[in-house]
């Protein structure tokens, strides 16, 4: 576009122009509508605005200051943002070009990205668009995208469900890497089915709440990981060490039923945990109390009984002043 008027032009039938540009407007030299594309006519509720002033029907929102035909001609070839004064929500993109010999202006409009809304609001069909228009492809994409997003959302939901199920079935305590309550139950069931005699320890940390309260949860988590390290170091590969509550641990020791041997292990664990730990330069002091029992004291061997007896022994240890191990009192 160099702004100069060509002195020759093409002539085209109104019907052919309507097919090429179903949303065009022809304006006379004084800005009156002399022709209107059929799709645009639909948007105007079938009232073809022949003889009406373009600027009374439409507002050119951008570029600013286009309020008469001279301004429109001076913007020839530029992208225009136009809206119907009667329907302020309806935005169009447009371009205006002058007709030959000062016979007026031809404006072509399109919906731009609001095409999907326009199609719904005005019940437009394929025939309302020029065959070259990519409106169909845009509508197709909107719909394809919606369908794909739905599939992805469904997939995410299923994966989320699978993740929850996997977590429920997991056997590891995420924080310490020890076994969890579920794994403990499985390990107990296994040694009982095999008929292996075993020792059981129930350990509870002393003063752990104070560490959490004064130094924060990060320090508490650090302490729990340190405790796990000590428990792993002081037990054998075949033993099951489980964290079963915030600061509660249960150890299953297959083949170990002699009170002296169990007491020695418990003593080493307590001695180790009595050593102060540091977290970010701060000392964290805890200790541990342990209750113990052995499967040979039961017939039949019932894990729930053993756990509750070990728990009772644990509280006896706490009452006796903490930082010690107590064997289940017989009877």
């Amino acid at each position, binding site marked *: 576009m160099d702004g100069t008027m060509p002195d020759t032009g093409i002539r085209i039938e109104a019907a052919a122009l309507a097919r090429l540009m179903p949303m065009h407007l022809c304006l006379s030299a004084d800005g009156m509508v002399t022709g209107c594309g059929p799709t645009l006519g639909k948007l105007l509720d079938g009232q073809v605005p022949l003889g009406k002033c373009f600027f009374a029907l439409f507002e050119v929102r951008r570029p600013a200051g286009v309020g008469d035909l001279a301004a429109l001609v001076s913007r020839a070839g530029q992208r225009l943002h136009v809206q119907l004064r009667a329907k302020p929500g309806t935005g169009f993109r447009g371009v205006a070009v002058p007709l030959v010999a000062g016979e007026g202006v031809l404006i072509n409009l399109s919906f731009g990205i609001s095409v999907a809304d326009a199609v719904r609001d005005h019940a437009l069909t*394929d025939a309302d668009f020029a065959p070259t228009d990519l409106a169909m492809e845009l509508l197709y*994409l909107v*719909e394809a995208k919606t369908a*794909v997003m739905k599939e992805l959302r469904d997939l995410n939901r299923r994966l989320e469900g699978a993740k929850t199920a996997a977590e429920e079935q997991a056997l590891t305590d995420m924080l310490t890497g020890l076994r969890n309550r579920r794994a403990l139950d499985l390990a107990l069931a296994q040694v009982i089915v095999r008929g292996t005699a075993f020792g059981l320890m129930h350990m509870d940390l002393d003063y752990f709440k104070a560490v959490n309260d004064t130094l924060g949860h990060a320090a508490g988590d650090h302490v729990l990981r340190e405790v796990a390290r000590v428990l792993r170091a002081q037990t054998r590969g075949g033993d099951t060490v489980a964290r079963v509550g915030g600061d509660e641990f249960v150890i299953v020791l297959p083949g170990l039923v002699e009170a002296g041997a169990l007491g020695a292990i418990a003593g080493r664990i307590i001695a180790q945990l009595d050593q102060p730990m540091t977290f970010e330069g701060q000392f964290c002091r805890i200790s541990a109390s342990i209750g113990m029992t052995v499967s040979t004291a039961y017939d039949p061997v019932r894990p729930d009984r053993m756990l509750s007896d070990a728990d009772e022994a644990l509280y006896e240890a706490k009452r006796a002043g903490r930082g010690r191990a107590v064997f289940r009192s017989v009877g």
Partner: protein
Amino acid sequence: MHGLVNRSIQVFLRDTYGAALWTDVAQTAGLGFDNFEAMLSYDDRLTDAVIGAAARLLDRPREAVLEDLGTFLVSHPNLESLRRLLRFGGVTFVDFLHSLDDLPGRGRLALADLDLPLLELQGEATDRFTLACRAPLPGIGHVIVGLLRAMADDYGALVLLEHEGSGLAGEVVSIHLLESQFAAGRRFDLAVRAG
């Protein structure tokens, strides 16, 4: 093959013959899982194994199962979106036929890794065409026959369709358009329904 294709086959078998049959098919085909995920990709051999297992368990020719699959894909309410996406191809059935060349391109617009069958329409006459179909799935032509039959119904067109066997360009389907506006056809609104 894309999970979307495999998932559609699963939905077809499950909705047409029941969940128990699908479970048997998944087992016979040796999938190693219960459900295809639409947004994942699978080995092409699994798709073939599923069709083979379905044909054996249903005691029906493989070709018939594939053709029913094609019809199901565009006529079942559960897969309404696929019918709509195909209807965007054209206002008339002939328009639609000519849009089939664009099918893989349209598929990729929706999902970059979706490889739909390569379809090539030929025919000088206005009522007789041949369509060459190429895809990793042997028997794809039968799927297309079923799909075109359902789409013709959708447009209200009366057509004769025949699988003509395989040529160099792939499996060949002949299309004889007897009447383009035989029945009213189904309504097609461009706008997406609310929801």
